[in-house]
């Protein structure tokens, strides 16, 4: 018996042998602790192994050690009996192999070995410091719940459970990353989901061959349909109310440990221009704001190119009222308009990036310096046209209006190729560039669902929930399936 388990996978009956094996695996991990004790009056030798910085001492002391040491039964108990009768812990599992034991210890559980039994018990004792539930900083609304997800996956799922008190909300666990073994959860509502999509998500996650996963952003790029497209096909959020509304519209949510951003697949284009506040405020106001957002999105990548096309190629398109002012601004400037726009655009992007990295106290100064230097001084020194600065500033502001950061980043990217093509070919380049972008955009699919569902092809009832905000939807439904909740 002993010989069979010398180099084996399975646990041995001998506690000391198990201890030696585990000590060699966890060698030079000085935060592991081996607690040897006897179970009450029966004099059974037991060993408790745990990582001191991951477990809660109170649980170890009272739940495990005291309840076992206070046992006055003189009979030797089997491990199943100990599990069933002696340990008042809410989560206990039976382990049989060394790999299971090692992962359990590394995951913050306390593993109990009993002499004479080739199994071990892993008892949940996890307690680690994590950020409290804070206000959402990156997705700001005026009205509505202000909670945001933190890095603790189970807490995040708890936040979601608090919105949907229903057994049909399914939570599927798994691990990703052969080295980091990070746990993830798939969360979806059974009634609104398309089974094919869940299957596809599982497949894609299962096919991932990764060492490490540090954030959901990595998963996003790896499971996305077109990772090189400027339009994002996977959305993320850090607000539970937004996530819940998406789950109730047939999305699958992917939670990852240590990541406050939760992915949702599949993602449609219209989602990136929607904000949960749209449903908490009145319809008329929010419809106008939604239309504004669509307009701002278009402006954010069209405006500089249109400006270059008109100022560089087709002067007769300038209305007569603008002509004197524009002529006066343009007179004697060193750089052609196209180059001006490109340079100012790049300067604006540099400013934006610098603003992200600057420590808080200096951030204000940067914005003032940037505005003064780039805007005012360059115009006064007659290096650039005032109209160019206005165009670039308007473009930048419009790109901030788009709620979905990944989408506005995509639009930012698109601006440059379009600008370059327009600089070479004027209005023809502009039209061709727009056509190519539109063709790409309209044929994108996200997990098999048409990316522009709701806009094109469109049904009349879709428009009132995408571009406008019509009557509040009383029934949840999956937009591309249209399935409603059965009565």
């Amino acid at each position, binding site marked *: 018996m002993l010989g069979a388990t010398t180099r084996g996978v399975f646990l041995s009956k001998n506690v000391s042998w198990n201890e030696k094996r585990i000590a060699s695996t966890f060698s030079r991990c000085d935060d592991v602790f081996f607690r040897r004790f006897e179970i009450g009056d029966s004099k059974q030798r037991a060993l408790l192994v745990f990582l001191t910085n991951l477990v809660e001492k109170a649980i170890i002391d009272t739940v495990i050690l005291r309840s076992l040491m206070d046992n006055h039964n003189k009979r030797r108990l089997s491990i199943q009996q100990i599990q069933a009768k002696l340990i008042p812990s809410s989560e206990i599992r039976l382990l049989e192999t060394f790999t299971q034991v090692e992962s359990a210890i590394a995951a913050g559980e306390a593993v109990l070995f009993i002499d004479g039994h080739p199994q071990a018990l892993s008892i949940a004792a996890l307690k680690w410091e994590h950020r409290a539930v804070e206000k959402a900083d990156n997705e700001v609304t005026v009205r509505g719940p202000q909670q945001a997800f933190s890095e603790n996956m189970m807490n995040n799922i708890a936040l979601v459970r608090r919105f949907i008190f229903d057994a049909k909300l399914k939570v599927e666990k798994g691990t990703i990353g052969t080295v980091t073994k990070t746990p993830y959860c798939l969360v979806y509502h059974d009634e609104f989901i398309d089974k094919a999509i869940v299957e596809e998500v599982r497949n894609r996650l299962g096919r991932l061959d990764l060492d490490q996963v540090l954030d959901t952003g990595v998963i996003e790029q790896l499971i996305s349909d077109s990772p090189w497209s400027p339009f994002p096909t996977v959305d993320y959020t850090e607000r539970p109310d937004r996530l819940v509304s998406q789950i109730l519209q047939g999305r699958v949510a992917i939670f990852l440990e240590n990541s406050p951003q939760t992915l949702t697949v599949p993602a449609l284009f219209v989602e990136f221009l929607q904000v949960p506040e749209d449903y908490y405020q009145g319809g008329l106001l929010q419809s106008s704001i939604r239309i504004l957002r669509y307009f701002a999105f278009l402006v954010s990548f069209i405006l500089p190119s249109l400006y270059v*096309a008109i100022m560089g190629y087709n002067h007769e398109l300038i209305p007569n009222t603008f002509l004197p002012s524009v002529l006066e601004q343009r007179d004697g400037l060193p750089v052609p308009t196209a180059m001006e726009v490109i340079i100012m655009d790049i300067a604006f992007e540099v400013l934006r990036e610098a603003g992200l990295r600057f420590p808080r106290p200096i951030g204000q100064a940067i914005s003032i310096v940037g505005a003064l230097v780039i805007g005012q001084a360059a115009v006064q020194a007659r290096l650039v046209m005032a109209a160019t600065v206005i165009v670039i500033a308007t473009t930048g502001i419009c790109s901030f209006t788009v709620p979905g950061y990944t989408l506005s980043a995509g639009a930012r990217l698109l601006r440059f190729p379009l600008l370059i093509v327009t600089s070479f070919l004027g*209005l023809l380049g502009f039209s061709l560039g727009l*056509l190519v972008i539109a063709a790409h955009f309209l044929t994108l699919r996200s997990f098999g669902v048409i990316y522009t569902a709701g806009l094109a*092809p469109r049904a009349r009832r879709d428009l009132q929930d995408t571009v406008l905000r019509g009557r509040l939807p009383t029934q949840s439904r999956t937009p591309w399936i249209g399935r409603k909740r059965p009565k």
Partner: protein
Amino acid sequence: MTNESLNTITVKQLYRLIPLLILPTGALALPTMVGVKAGNGGWLCPWLSASVSLVVIYILGSLDRGFPNQTFIEYAIELVGAAIGRSLGVLYSLFFLFSGMMVVLETSGFIVSTVLKETPRLIVLVAIYGAMAYMLSLGLEGIARLGDILYMFLFVLIVTLVVGSTKDVHVNALFPLLDQGWSGVLSGSYIAVSWFCEVIVAAMFFPSVKYKSHLRTHLVMGVLVTSILLSAATAVTIGVLGPQETARNVYATFNVVRYIQWGEFFQHIDAFFIIPWISVMILKSMMFYHAGVMGLTQTCGISRYQLLIVPLMVLSVVSALWLFPNEFSISEYHRFVFPNYAVVLEVFIPALLWIVFLIKSRASRTNR
């Protein structure tokens, strides 16, 4: 919509593709041609041509009922046998490809004369064909979805043209009606027939349509919308410029757009004409190329049509420059060559096929 196979379109999308097939070159070239032939009555020509295309729609619709999942070329092969069918297939594919090239040539002619005056034609053609190569690889789905959006723009464009010119229209120019008699209108319509019956390109897309309910109704609606828009645009052009001036100008509609001026601010709106117009013309040529490529793959049995795209684009650039070295040859082609042979291919051959289909189905019914 989840996991749908690519390359299916709905009937509504097909309906929107019809004006996009006919209007782009029509609205630009029709007023000029009918101004020459029909004078005041030019705005009646689209209606007469539309009636011929309604006949063609009826024919194509009933042929489609007989062969639901096959394109025009496939059931032509079935109806008249492999030899004649395949040669018809080659003929139609070449017709579609050539017409697509002509549309691109017209686009490039328009651009080179108005927007980019010093750019060599080669560059314009390379740019257009380069963009088209990418867009064609996206398949029919891409064309249909683009058509959805561009249809809106086209509609808004023509409505803006008509509404914006109302204050400048000389109503007297449209009277007396038919000062040159019906003969002028009829000969003008004869030219327009070849454009309206380009509905046959849509016949190549019929098998890709899911849920073919009311197919013919939608096509007829598409033709009606086209006629309304086209005749309104022609009427406005004749009203603003006068019939003789319309005949004299190569791009009459464009001149009307350039003339629209409301106050000091709403003027010089040709950019908002040029951008949708280029897009819509390229979409039209994309439809022709797609039909042609599909025809080739079906006639020659090629599996993936993506292989054909890039060589076809290169070939088109070269033939465009070589076959039509100057603008006069293009306008001569459009005035004298195209109407005559297009009518045969778009009207007579489908009619003959239909007759063969009727004979065969009657024969098979009597045999049972």
